[in-house]
Structure formats: structure tokens, C-alpha cells
């Protein structure tokens, strides 16, 4: 099977999945007890008033019709309205996506920069202190709730050492955010050569990124270590040793390159981890991203944003997994033949 046909087949599989995702999201939003009309009408509304709102929102129509209107609405970018901010959810989302994206990317960098070398070194120096440490982090890292890691880091670096800022958002209150280009403060500050904003935003990003990065690091290190061990014992590496190739080149050239291919499959899992972790970490550091928005609107009895957030994350998750499969098919031709 050619790569083109593989891509087509994989793309077609996305359709039923997205159908299922919207069906679940629709069920959660409209069919469950928390009637959106009741929420919108408020606690003191009369039954007539609720019925009126129900009619206006189309909630008295047959379920398939409601679902159809829901999906066509989504395609037009209609994610509903937030009763706490009084604005379309999509607009609130646009404002907050950069914060979440910045945190996610920074955590990913932390996880990759520490996790992959750690996994490689741990495999190369098997059964040394370093290896034991990395395996301890591997099992311990997945057992630590990220809100706890974040709070402990805060205690040490903010309260005890005083080197981290208070957990109050992305930038110090007395620093003006950099001119918006991408919305990522660090990148924007760099592009506009705004030194004060750059320092302040990096300072605020430090602990949240470390917290979230740590949560994602464990599975990454574990996988790199396992594949690296497998590859170091394979025939072609033995052949490379026998041919007298330099150690550095065998380990970091041939072996590492092949060990990184399976890591691609982990990207989907990591994305899921990051999204779940985002919600919690954003709450700990009052990071004004999507997770923070969804949870705080829930506290004010506004379920709209949280359901849109879930749908948004699920669609992103489906796309990331699609990308992972395609990349993997490109990197490893055997996959396409299945």
C-alpha cells in the first residue's frame, strides 16, 4: 500500500471518531439533568419563563434536530455563550489559547530536554546510580499528582528561597505585557526586544512549566530507556561495535536515531497528559489559560465553557493522534502495510 492510500484511509477514520466525539459532547451538554435553559433563566425564574427560553434555544425540538443544530453551529464556530463573561465562548477562548499554548510548549521543552537525555544515559549506564535514579523518577513521577508537585515547588522556590514570583499569572503586575504578535509573552517579548517583559514572563513561566514538564517526563524517560536498551542489544549495534566504530557515534548516532522513532507514538499520550495537567497546573498558578477559564466558570455555575473546552481538547486530541499516525507511517514503512 502506498503512503497516499494510507493517508486517505487514516483520514477517513477520523470522520466516525469526530461523529462520536460530538455525540458525547452533545449528550453531556444538552441531555443531562443540568438543563441549560434552567441555568440561563436563573434560580428565580418561573416555569413559563424557563419554557420560553427552552423554546428560544430549540430545546423543545426532537433530539436529532437539536444535534443537527449543535453540529452546524460548531462548524460555524458557535461554541455557545458564557453566562459569566456574557461573551461568546469562542472569543473568550481566542483570548486564552496563547496562555495555554505557551505553558504547554514550555513544559514540552522541559520534558524533552530533561527526559530524553536522562533516558538515554540511564540505558547506556545501566544499573548505575544514575539508572536507579531515573527509574525511581519514572515510577515516582507518574504517582505524584501535579497540583502537589506545583505546590511543593511553590513552597520551596517562592516561600523558602524567594526566587520565584507569587503564583499570580503570566507576568508581574507592574510590567506591561509585550505588544501582542502571537500572544505568547516570551516570544512576543523577544520579537519586540522588550527585555523587562521577557525577564518577567520567563520568571512567571518557570515553575508552572517545571511542574507540568515533570509530570510528562516520566513516561518519556521510561520509553526512551526501554527502546534504547533494546536497540543497544540488537545485531546492527553489535556489528557497529565489531566494526570498531567510535562509541560516541554508535550510541548517539545510530542507536539514538532509531530509539526516537517509537517516541513519536508517545506524543499522543503526552498531549493528553499535558491537557489534563494544564487544567490543574493553571489552577495552582492562576495561569489565565483555557483550563483556568473552564474551571472558574464552572464555579460560577456556568457549564458552557467547560463543555466547549472538553470538545476543543477532544478535537485537538483526535488531530494530534492523526498526526502521530501519519508521522509514524512516514518514519516506519512497516506500519503502512498492516
Amino acid at each position, binding site marked *: 500500500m502506498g503512503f497516499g492510500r494510507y493517508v486517505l484511509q487514516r483520514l477517513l477514520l477520523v470522520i*466516525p*471518531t*469526530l*461523529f*462520536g*466525539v460530538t*455525540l*458525547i*459532547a452533545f449528550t*453531556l*451538554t444538552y441531555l*443531562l*439533568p*443540568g438543563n441549560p435553559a434552567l441555568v440561563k433563566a436563573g434560580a428565580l425564574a418561573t416555569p413559563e419563563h424557563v419554557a420560553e427560553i427552552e423554546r428560544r434555544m430549540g430545546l423543545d425540538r426532537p433530539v436529532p434536530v437539536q444535534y443537527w443544530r449543535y453540529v452546524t453551529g460548531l462548524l460555524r464556530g458557535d461554541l455557545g455563550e458564557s453566562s459569566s463573561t456574557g461573551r461568546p465562548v469562542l472569543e473568550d477562548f481566542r483570548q486564552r489559547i496563547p496562555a495555554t499554548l505557551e505553558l504547554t510548549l514550555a513544559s514540552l521543552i522541559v520534558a524533552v530536554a530533561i527526559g530524553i537525555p536522562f533516558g538515554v544515559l540511564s540505558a547506556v549506564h545501566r544499573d548505575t546510580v544514575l539508572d536507579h535514579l531515573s527509574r525511581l523518577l519514572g*515510577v*515516582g513521577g*507518574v*504517582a*505524584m*499528582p*501535579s*497540583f*502537589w508537585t506545583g*505546590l*511543593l515547588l*511553590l*513552597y520551596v522556590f*517562592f*516561600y523558602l528561597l524567594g526566587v520565584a514570583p*507569587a*503564583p499570580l499569572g503570566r507576568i508581574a503586575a507592574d510590567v506591561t505585557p509585550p505588544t501582542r504578535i502571537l500572544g505568547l509573552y516570551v516570544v512576543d517579548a523577544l520579537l519586540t526586544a522588550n527585555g523587562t517583559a521577557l525577564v518577567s514572563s520567563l520568571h512567571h513561566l518557570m515553575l508552572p512549566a517545571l511542574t507540568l514538564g515533570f509530570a510528562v517526563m516520566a513516561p518519556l524517560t*521510561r520509553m526512551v530507556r*526501554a527502546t534504547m536498551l533494546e536497540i543497544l542489544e540488537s545485531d546492527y549495534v553489535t556489528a557497529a561495535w565489531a566494526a570498531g566504530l567510535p562509541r560516541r557515534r554508535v550510541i548517539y548516532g545510530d542507536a539514538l536515531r532509531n530509539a526516537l522513532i517509537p517516541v513519536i507514538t508517545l506524543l499522543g499520550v503526552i*498531549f*493528553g*497528559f499535558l*491537557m*489534563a495537567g494544564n*487544567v*490543574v497546573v493553571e*489552577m*495552582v498558578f492562576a495561569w489565565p489559560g483555557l483550563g483556568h477559564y473552564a*474551571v472558574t466558570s*464552572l*464555579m460560577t455555575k456556568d*457549564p458552557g465553557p*467547560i*463543555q466547549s*473546552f*472538553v470538545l476543543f*481538547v*477532544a478535537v485537538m*486530541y*483526535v488531530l494530534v493522534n492523526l498526526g502521530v499516525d501519519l508521522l509514524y507511517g512516514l518514519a516506519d514503512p512497516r506500519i503502512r502495510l498492516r
Partner: protein
Amino acid sequence: MRWRRLTRNRLSFGALCVILAVTLTSLLAPWVAPYDPDNPDAEATLASVSMRHPLGTDVYGRDQLSRVIHAGRIDLLVALCATAIALTLGSALGAGAGYRGGWVDQLVMRSVDAIMAFPAFILAMAITAALGNSIANVVAAIAITHVPIYTRLIRGEMLRVRETEYAEAARTVGNRPHQIVLYHLLPNCVPPLVVQATLAMGFAILTVAALSFIGLGIHPPQSEWGQMTAEGAGYVVSGEWWLVLFPGFAIMLTVLAFNLVGDTLRDLLDPRMRGVR
């Protein structure tokens, strides 16, 4: 090599002891806990670690040790119920799909795919938000997100065992399909199920704690590890570390114990999956 296997067993033995200890203290909480978890001590509000209150007290002067012990009841109960429900439901669906095949298989597997299209925690969050905050709803949310694990596992096993000779033999002597599945095939799928369920317990505890931390699920004054950490979160910046350290540590210790036991069980019961994770 032998020495390493020994430490490994010693490690999992330790983990097993932790699970046992946490379970026992939770079961016997009213007798083991030094104080009533909801009873404030006006003379010792926000008191640090001391002989009188080994894990300190919170802002109302409630004893942290007693609260951590009582909290374990909720965390373990929710995780256990969710795992039991997911295991039963997931296995039934997986067995049906794998044994019947055809449209049943298609329907079940496509539904499972849709559930798996959501990151588990995010879906659990949405379900609890939609159903409303209560212990039962948290159980339901976690159970639903865990069903796919067992469905896929059992379906795969069913596809394998339904073609075996003993399954053929059971059919030939005139057993009904549900008898074959229930009495002849499912018992052979138990080992991987046990492994998955143990690992899922750890994940379930993390989920309950995280849900309560963000204010979904278990509500005060009922103590729960994640919710206790959330209550203590505001005090970390003013130096009251014990409010966060101990409940979080309880979560980590319990989850770690379940993961270690699960890993060891996998090596013992299911050699095919050795080294997968």
C-alpha cells in the same frame, strides 16, 4: 541478577504492605484516628507538626492526621467502586464484541473509540460537571472513562481463545454461547484483567484527587486527599507547608504502591507484556 529480583520482590512486598496499611487505617478510621476529623480545636488553629497534632492542624484547628486517615476512606472507596464497575461493564462488552463479532463488535468498538478520543481526565471532568457534584457521580465518571481499557483487553483475548480447541469442544457438547463465554473463556482472561485493574486503581485515585482539587466531586466538610490539598493550597505561600505536604504524600504513596504491585503482577501473571511499559 538474583539479588536484583530479590530487591524487586522486596519492593513490591513493601508496596503490598502500604496498600494493606492504607486499607486497614481507612476501614478502622473512627478507631485509629486520634481525633474527630471534623472537630475543631480552637486553641490550635494552623498549628504546625507537634506531639499533640502529629501532622499539624488546619485553619479551623482540625487535626490533619485524623482528616488524612478519614480521607483515605473516600479515595479508596471511589477508586474501588469505579474500578469494579468499569471491570464488569468493560469485560461484558468486550466479551460480547469479541465472541459475537459482526455488528455487535462494530457498535461496541466504535463507541469505545469515541470515549478514547477524549483524554481520560478531561472526559471525567466533563461528566462530573454535567451530572453534578456527588460521590456517586465521580464514581460513574471514572468508571466510564475506564471501560475502554477492559473492553479492548477482553475483546482481544476473546478473539484469541474462541478459536481454541477447548472452546470448540465446549460448543460441540451443546453449551449455550453465554455459558461458553462465562464458564469456559472468561476465566482464562483473568490474569491480564487483574493486572489492569491494579494499575487502574492508581490512576483512579489520582483522578478523584485531581477532580476534587479543582472543586468537582467531593465537597467539604467531607475530607478527601485532593480536596484537603486544595484547602491547604492558599497557605503554601505563607509557609503552612503541612496542609499540603501530607495529603499529597498520601496520594503519592498509595498510587505508587498500586503501580508497583501492578507492575510486579504483570511480570508474574502475564509474561507476554513484560517490559511493555
